[in-house]
């Protein structure tokens, strides 16, 4: 499965816009997780820009594909892609973490297109298993359930309970994607709680495993395409996507200090210009640069 030049360009644009809008909303709200949003920009771009069956005008259409963001702190990226797809007006991103706006961690009531509520890590895959079972019960063979997990999240026992049950019930309509960005909140995965041999763990739990570079749009698209068709053996599929936390901003890359850290407007402006340069777009700074920050800044990542 080869992406056309036009498709590739479209997905690059989406990934760039996901990063842009994520940083805009994190800076404006003075809260959020840049690293974990940026690391999955390409994953979300291919899912929402190419692979998933979705109709923003009918967000609850039965035949849609479902996606649960188990690493729900990556919410800016998911809200961004939903806005880009027309599930909500783009302006709504400036209500991130505001009362009645977009919840800090993805919440089903925040926006159409959000399929569940999350926050505490380790829980999303179980919900995805339940949805995949539900689709089976409704004899809906068209839809599938995607679940994006973090790497550090896989320290949680609940993930492996869910993994065990997905294989037991032969849920080949379930595709898990691990955003393996190597960094957790307070350090690197291998220092805090190692997860390797990671692919072997999933294999031992009865899953089909694909391992890719999660920033390579073509690789992501091919893996998702393969995941749709490897199901002949009746097992769920996990795509281990090797990514870089904070990918696109040099000072945030592989830097767990930017796990939770809202930049001030000047820093955000410079960061956005850097992202534009890195991905070959005309330089565009922070759109609310003139607006003074009136909120407290949360430096949870320090």
């Amino acid at each position, binding site marked *: 499965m080869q992406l056309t030049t036009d498709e590739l360009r479209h997905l690059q644009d989406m990934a760039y816009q996901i990063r842009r809008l994520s940083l805009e909303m994190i800076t404006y709200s003075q809260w959020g997780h840049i690293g974990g949003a940026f690391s999955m920009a390409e994953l979300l771009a291919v899912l929402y820009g190419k692979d998933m069956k979705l109709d923003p005008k009918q967000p609850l259409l039965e035949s849609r594909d479902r996606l649960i963001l188990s690493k729900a702190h990556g919410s800016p990226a998911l809200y961004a892609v939903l806005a880009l797809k027309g599930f909500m007006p783009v302006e709504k991103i400036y209500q991130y973490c505001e009362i009645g706006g977009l919840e800090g961690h993805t919440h089903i009531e925040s926006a159409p297109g959000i399929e*569940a509520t*999350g*926050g505490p890590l380790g*829980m999303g895959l179980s*919900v995805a298993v339940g*949805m995949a079972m539900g*689709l089976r019960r409704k004899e809906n063979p068209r839809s599938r359930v995607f679940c994006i997990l973090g790497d550090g999240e896989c320290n949680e*026992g609940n993930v492996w*309970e869910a993994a*065990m049950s997905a294989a037991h019930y032969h849920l080949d309509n379930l595709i898990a994607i691990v955003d393996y960005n190597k960094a957790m909140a307070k350090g690197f995965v291998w220092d805090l709680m190692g997860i390797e041999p990671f692919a072997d763990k999933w294999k031992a739990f009865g899953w089909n495993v694909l391992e890719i570079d999660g920033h390579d749009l073509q690789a992501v698209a091919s893996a998702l395409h393969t995941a749709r068709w490897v199901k002949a053996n009746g097992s769920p599929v996990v795509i281990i996507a090797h990514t870089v936390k904070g990918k696109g901003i040099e000072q945030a890359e592989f830097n767990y200090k930017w796990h939770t850290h809202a930049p001030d407007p000047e820093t955000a402006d410079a960061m956005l210009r850097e992202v534009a340069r890195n991905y070959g777009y005309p330089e565009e700074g922070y759109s609310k640069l003139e607006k003074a920050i009136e909120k407290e800044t949360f430096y949870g990542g320090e």
Partner: protein
Amino acid sequence: MAENKTSTPELRDAFGKTLLELGQENNKIVFLDADLHTSTKATGFKQTFPDRFVQVGIAEQNLFGIAAGLAFEGFIPFPSTFAAFASRRALDQIAISICFPKINVKIPGSYCGIPTSRAGGSHNCIEDLAVMRALPNMKVADPGSNEDLRQIMRTAVATPGPVYFRVTRYAVPELFGPGHQFEWGKGVVLRPGSDVTLFGTGVMTHFCLEAAGILAEQAIQAEVVHLASVKPIDSELIVQSAQKTGCAVTAENATIYGGLGDAVSQVLAEAHPVPVYRIGVRDQFVESGGIEELFALHQMTPQDIAKAALEVIRKKARSEQEAI
């Protein structure tokens, strides 16, 4: 000392029967088990509707997560385990995957409070009422009899959103005749009286009725109010009864921290303060033992309720004298 001499089936048997009845009426109901279905009495449902019986193994966090996923797809899941594991092991999943998005999951908590088996402090769950009551969007009920449980289950299915209800491994005489209806936030006066109100929930309501009998022998007229709906609670009835009697005893088959006793006390403290005594487990784990022995050990028998009633009546009289 309350002797459990009744020939009525245990509440958990009534649960199994009602589950089957609801399963026949509503094909959206899916029962999820974590390796306990013979204890929780879901075997009939399993045999009759094998396709709607999901075994998740010994994995309670996954149990409630899967239930959430099924509810998102339009099913009415009953994820079932012991109350201890629902309220302790899987609390986060219940709070965030189920209560926050207000989804349609009905949680039967089995083996509640004192009357479980001889399994001890790890399994005798006393904190579920408090814990579940603290969750936003959660409705909580503790049935007083088999028919009450049946109506609570029927109402739970008819009510959108998360519900937690207790299924006790104990038998009490039937409190209600045919035509009994359960309503969220509505209590029932089972015995009118003027001297003291005994507010009971779950199987303790039966003990309150027995206590009222003991008090009647001393010419004390106790009003017995059954509050199966622990959340929402019937504030109106609580205040109305306390205005009439001027003092109250609460009784729950659970810890006194955070459950019915606290709910009633909070209502009264804000609206109509009167002397209150809470009957329940007092900050201890309920260790292994015989059921009736444990009720006695934790001072939760009808005699204990009657004694507490006399005490609050004395307090009421004292404060009336002071007022003069």
